[in-house]
């Protein structure tokens, strides 16, 4: 199990190799990528920033929760920071398990929790030269 914030391109093949072994009959991969349009506006890229120490802590907590909840031991999460262009992979979650169901469930759990809880932000860059902070996240339960 490993989580990381990275400043360069994510090597998805390396992540699959990292979590897979001969006991694993299934490996699931989620990739988040930079999309060309958001809410009708043409996008050229996204600048990702984070509260690094807390983001790593929350990502670690999510990986542990996924491991406990779904009984998965082979899981890796990488989130990239910095300026990304269209199609670049911003986040990768790879889970391997003897069977597909826990691998699929753990992957889904990890990305949904990441989007809710991990302090990472997007500054979206548009074709017309403007930029805007994206506030898509929700406030975690139990706060306040």
């Amino acid at each position, binding site marked *: 199990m490993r989580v990381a914030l990275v400043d360069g391109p994510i090597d998805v093949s390396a992540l699959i190799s990292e979590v897979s072994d001969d006991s694993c009959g299934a490996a699931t991969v989620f990739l988040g990528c930079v999309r060309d349009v958001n809410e009708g506006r043409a996008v050229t890229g996204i600048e990702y920033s984070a509260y690094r120490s807390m983001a790593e802590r929350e990502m670690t907590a999510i990986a542990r929760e996924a491991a406990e909840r779904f009984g998965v031991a082979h899981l890796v999460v990488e989130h990239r920071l910095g300026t990304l262009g269209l199609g670049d992979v911003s986040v990768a979650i790879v889970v391997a398990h003897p069977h597909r169901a826990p691998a699929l469930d753990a992957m889904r759990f990890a990305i949904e929790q990441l989007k809710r809880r991990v302090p990472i932000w997007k500054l979206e860059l548009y074709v017309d030269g403007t930029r805007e*902070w994206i506030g898509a996240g929700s406030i975690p339960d139990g706060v306040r």
Partner: protein
Amino acid sequence: MGVHARRAGYILSETMTVTVLLFASYADALGKSAIELDVAPGSTVRDILGTLLSMPGGDRLPPRPLVAVNQEYASANTTLHGGEEVAVIPPVAGG
């Protein structure tokens, strides 16, 4: 110079310092990403937010933003003891 009272061998200061971290749109609003704040002992997260909201650009923050104390989400009632890292967290948008 601060006023100190010496009692039973302890030096009691009338203020304590916390480090406030700002990110993304909130850092843009206040024009900085970190602020050292001197506050009264026993201050809460709510008190810190009140101070921030009264600063130039503070009106661009929501009245009750999300906060983390020492990297953990915390309520407005959380009491501070000095030395904490208080992060004001805009809506997260990872992925």
